[in-house]
């Protein structure tokens, strides 16, 4: 399991590939990999967004992400989980979060990947401040998935 708060540009495909390569012991054991990448858009709620600041709670955020990943491995028969979330200054098209789940069968990977994202969105201590042409605003609330 790898869970990380990431302070510079996040490269989802390189992260997933290199983590999987390190888990040589899983070769031949997993039949399914489900991934999700959340990416910054250049619009939200009808407004253009030019930049974004992602604030977190150092310590609590890391601990809470680890809980979410562990929770998924308890609820679903998965082999491994990778979870990395970006913080700091972001521009449109920058990856925000990457989740990857490995399992023997596809159902567990799909279920766990989605469950991790839903739990993350509703409970992980991150806050987005968007920079619009008209000024800055805090995103008030996450939308349900």
């Amino acid at each position, binding site marked *: 399991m790898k869970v990380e708060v990431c302070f510079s540009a996040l490269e989802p495909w390189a992260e997933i590939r290199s983590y999987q390569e390190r888990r040589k012991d899983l070769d031949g054991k997993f039949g399914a990999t489900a991934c*999700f990448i*959340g990416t910054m858009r250049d619009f939200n709620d009808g407004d253009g967004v030019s930049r974004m600041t992602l604030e*977190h*709670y150092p310590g609590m955020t890391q601990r809470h992400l680890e809980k979410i990943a562990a929770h998924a491995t308890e609820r679903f028969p998965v082999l491994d989980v990778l979870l990395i979330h970006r913080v700091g200054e972001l521009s449109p098209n920058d990856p*925000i979060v990457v989740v990857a789940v490995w399992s023997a069968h596809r159902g567990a990977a799909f279920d766990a990947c989605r469950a991790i994202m839903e739990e993350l969105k509703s409970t992980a201590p*991150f806050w987005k401040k968007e920079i619009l042409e008209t000024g800055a605003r805090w995103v008030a609330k*996450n939308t349900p998935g």
Partner: protein
Amino acid sequence: MSIRVRFFASLREQMGYSEKSIAFEGLATVSDVLERLDKARILDAQVLYAVNMEYANSDTPVKDGDEVAFFPPVTGGGP
């Protein structure tokens, strides 16, 4: 004998500071911490509580040296 109080995101901006230390004397729960702060301002913001980096509620007990955090609803992840 003190409690470290922290604020995040919009609540930090509303309060005008990110943390402060308050005397522990007379504090038994998160509620008591709230009473000691500018409670009205904090409660306006649908605020969430954490004690020592675990989610908490207003009845959660606090002890000397604890870290109590207040923050708005979380908004991580992708869209």
